[in-house]
């Protein structure tokens, strides 16, 4: 009934495609971003970037229309929330102004150099998002600026509301950005004004809920406080992100008796599922050694 030749050909075709996929998977892990596959990806992205830009712009009205329908439903709740937030921020503003003045005076008193941080010591380059990762398992976007615009690998990326991610690869006219909601992302962060440190990690499938992990139990973290990048720096390692980029607001604190650390849930400021424009911080400011006048090794 079945032609054995056809069956053999069919199985051979399937085997070839599966083996090719496995070879690519293995090579992809072995080369970690470089090598032939990296060059292939860079080449394909350069070739298809104009098409992607064009498609993105052509389809923007349709996207905006669907977005507008959704936004209209959310607007009422959003308005109420924002009003409450404005009231809260007004209360904080008075205290912050006094604290800043005190900090400036104390800094001058002990002759402490100002730490490189955000937004000072950074030079943002605005970019449009042209491609979004289609699956929930990888949170990456591609932007229409690349090495020609001074963008380099590992530079921090911010969106309207706060930290968005970091540049993971660059080609001439485009760059890939790994968002903070990607499974491979981890950001050293600090709760303000409590000062508790931890690592912000995502939970796959919940882009509106990040986890601040490894926060010591003795540090009290309250709901509603802001989490920013800590921008730690030691003699051997340095955070990719400058100090002070807002990440999100604390929504819940899990205090499990058994766990060594408390797990803090936060809602990111940036709406990373609908981000259209981002800024790449192309200037990292001077390092601690440079500030102290010591030449870098």
């Amino acid at each position, binding site marked *: 009934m079945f032609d054995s030749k056809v069956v053999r050909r069919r199985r051979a075709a*399937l085997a070839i495609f*599966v083996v090719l996929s496995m070879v690519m998977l293995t090579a992809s892990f072995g080369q970690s971003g470089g090598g032939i596959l990296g060059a*292939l990806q860079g080449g394909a992205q350069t070739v298809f970037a104009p098409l992607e830009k064009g498609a993105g712009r052509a*389809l923007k009205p349709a996207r905006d229309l669907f977005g507008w329908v959704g936004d209209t439903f959310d607007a009422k709740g959003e308005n109420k929330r924002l009003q409450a937030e404005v009231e809260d921020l007004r209360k904080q503003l008075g205290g912050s102004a006094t604290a800043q003045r005190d900090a400036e005076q104390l800094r001058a008193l002990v002759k402490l150099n100002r730490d490189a941080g955000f937004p000072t010591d950074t030079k943002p380059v605005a970019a449009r998002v*042209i491609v979004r990762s*289609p699956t929930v398992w990888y949170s990456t976007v591609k932007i229409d600026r690349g090495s020609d615009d001074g963008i380099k690998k590992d530079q921090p990326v911010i969106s309207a509301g706060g930290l968005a991610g970091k540049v*993971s690869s660059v080609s001439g006219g485009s760059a890939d950005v790994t968002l903070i909601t990607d499974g491979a992302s981890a950001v050293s962060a600090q709760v303000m004004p409590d000062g508790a440190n931890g690592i912000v990690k995502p939970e796959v*499938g919940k882009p509106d809920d990040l986890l601040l992990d490894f926060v010591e139990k003795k540090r009290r973290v309250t709901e509603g406080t802001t989490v920013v990048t800590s921008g730690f720096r030691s003699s051997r390692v340095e955070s990719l992100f400058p100090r002070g980029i807002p990440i999100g607001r604390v929504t819940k604190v899990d205090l499990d008796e058994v766990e060594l650390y408390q797990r803090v849930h936060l809602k990111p400021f940036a709406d990373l599922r609908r981000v259209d424009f981002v800024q790449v911080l192309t200037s990292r400011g001077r390092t601690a050694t440079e500030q102290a006048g010591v030449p870098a090794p």
Partner: protein
Amino acid sequence: MRPTPGAFLRAGAIAVVAVILQLSGLGPLRFFGATPDLTPLVVAAVAIYAGSIPGAAMGFGTGLLLDLLVGGTMGPSSLVLTAVGYWVGRYREVRDPAHGLLPIPVGAVATLGWALAFAAVSFMLDVGTTVSPLVLREMLVATALNTIIALPVFWLCRRVLRPALAVDPLDARRRRRKPRGTGPLGLRGLEV
């Protein structure tokens, strides 16, 4: 499908348009927390109209393009879409379905299969963080969205592929053709 340059060109055009639309157009659109996914639909469409080998080839090519353009790990999309294309093609070859609403269940099963298999491959490879159960909900919503758009997507793919198809399995005329006159036992020559 006859393996002619025209056939490759048509299937390639479908793959490129679907991937570009998916990455640049549909990406930010979210309905009930999920996004429709064109890629498994076009692979399933080519497989159901052309068979298992073209389906597997289409799956591999679409996955490769997806991996190339998204960046990151190469291979998982092409591996999973190859399997999706092959099995949908085999279903067509073994069952020879011809119902006009066939794209709906085929699209739904292909999408769910793609989502579950991709999740399994991602788990095995490099997901280094916790996974929320909400991922399951997103998969189901995406499957429902794809079920809704399956008919027009399959129809478009069929329109593009038709000149290159050796046999169109969903050709309604083939099924609706009136049988020649037969007798009460269904045998010709025994007409009453």
